């Protein structure tokens, strides 16, 4: 096992560096899409997919250790996302308006200028988290199989592991 890379082999410096360059840019783009979603192309789902693509890239370059969101299980990510989305609907209900009824926030804020977002934003944030959690879960469970079988195929006696590279 070489640094937990899914398919064994040496790390590719080119891939490593490219991912390091691209990773944060892609995440910023995903957040932009998330916030633009209420009246422009974008939204929680596409934002989440873009963020998921960033996670997949990092997973391919660096293996599972760097794959998912550090410290948070994907079930939790999925659950929290779903909770935010569903409670957005319920909150509108409790607040006296109809279920999932949207509101608009449109105000001048110092430094930022005009800030506008709508009641669909929390819902979209929930969707964003659900999509990220789902992609992390898929990558992790598909990759787990690849990790074990590829590692066995490349190194049937587990010699590399004993030499202590991992």
């Amino acid at each position: 096992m070489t640094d937990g890379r899914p398919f064994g082999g040496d790390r590719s410096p080119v891939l490593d560096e490219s991912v390091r360059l691209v990773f944060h840019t892609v995440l910023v783009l995903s957040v932009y899409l998330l916030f633009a979603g209420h009246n422009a192309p974008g939204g929680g789902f596409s934002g989440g997919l873009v963020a998921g693509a960033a996670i997949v890239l990092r997973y391919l370059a660096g293996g599972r250790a760097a794959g998912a969101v550090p410290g948070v299980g994907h079930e939790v990510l999925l659950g929290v996302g779903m909770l935010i989305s569903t409670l957005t609907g319920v909150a509108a209900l409790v607040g006296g308006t109809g279920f999932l009824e949207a509101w608009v926030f449109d105000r001048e804020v110092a430094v930022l200028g005009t800030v506008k977002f709508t009641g669909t934003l929390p819902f979209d944030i929930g969707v964003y988290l659900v999509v990220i959690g789902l992609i992390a879960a898929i990558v992790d469970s598909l990759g787990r199989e690849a990790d074990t079988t590829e590692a066995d195929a490349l190194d049937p006696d587990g010699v590399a592991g004993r030499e202590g590279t991992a």
Partner: protein
Amino acid sequence: MTALLPLSVVLPLVGAALCLVFSRVRALQRTVTLVTLAAGVGMAAMVLARVDAEGPTAVQVGEWAAPVGITLVADLMAALFLLFAMLTILGVAVYAIGQGADGRSVFHPAYLVLAAGVAGSFLAGDLFNLFVCFEMMLIASYVLITIGATEAQVRSGMTYVVINLTASTLFVTVVAFVYAATGTLNLADLSGRFASLPQALQLAIGLSLFVMFGVKAAIFPLFGWLPDSYPNAPTAVTAVFAGLLTKVGVYAIIRTQTVLGLDELGTFILVVAGITMVVGVVGAIAQGEVKRILSFHIISQIGYMIMGLGLFTVAGVAGAIFYVIHQIPGKTVLFLAGGLVEETTGTGELHRLGGLIRSAPVIAVAFLIPALSLGGIPPLAGFVAKLSLVQAGLSAEAWVIVAVALVASILTMVSMTKIWSGVFWGDPDEAPPLPAALGATRLRPPALMTAATLATVGITLAIAVFAGPIFDMATRAAESALDNTAYVEAVMGS
């Protein structure tokens, strides 16, 4: 009331989200599931009380008016089904917890999403959201049916997934047809516009919807996936599928066909119903294992429900509605009892079982009551259901289907007797896997499982006791389904 309908769908989803967050803590997951489902039962009862008093109620989600927005509608038929579905889902949840079937952390979230999908399918006011809720239910069912990840489960689960995905693709296609032809998907709006379409197009749409929901409801000849996939899943999962999934399909058939009002399809539906009854029950007689026999029975029973619709009379549809109501808990509890047999003896194969009437009398009672009900023995609910269908058939002068229904009913009794004599009477031909089952000691399944099974038996008995009022409601539900003026008014608001 405007809060109750969306909450019936969303609350289980909130519960599912919490169960995901707590996926490491089984006790919390169980608490969330039980609390959510109990609240679901309470809300369903309130919806029913309200709809019974005030007629159909509609909620426009997000205040986007019909026919554009998402509409949730509860009429008497939907409210009745919702209540008995939620009761059954709660009962099976207790059973699953008692059995420890929730060993994988994904069980509770998937189970609650299934509950949300079932509730949503009953309450959806337009075809597209019916599709969405159906998919929610099915995707959760894909997880549940393969949850043990044994080889047999994955093999039969693949068949199940592929067939359902095919049917779902057909569903979206039909939705597109309907939208292209009428410009609306809202059921209330549709019922007004559908009549102006050319006759051939009407029939094409009606038939496509019937075939597509027919796959989900497992009618002849589209039932092949069911007896293969159901018996391999864990008992609690099979039980809830048996009680609900096919019935949601039947509900969708009744709902769409009454909205479209295509009486011309009646004869066709009756023919399909008759064949479904006979083929299902003959298949059941040929089987030698408890869950497989019961799985074939599901198909046979679907035939009766479709028969009531095919008559296209108030009495017929009322019979079908009552039939669905008594089948939801009735079919489930048979699987629960079958699961208790497997739990205590380690097998469901008839030739390895016997004498359980002495070693496990409680299980015998829990099986006997719903079995007699299914066979149509008075005074149980199944008798009332069959009687009402036969009467409806006689008054519509549909002699052939009545004869077929009566013959199929006798055959049902025969195959139930097969389980009864194989499992509860006599001695096993071969030793069962667990020595305790030989009759030497009393068999005791986990108390919670027995309690959940008996509680569900209690629901079936309650349906028999209150058959009068429930049937009266079913009749009014059928009246309002066939003549949907009140439904349309509630949705379109005029």
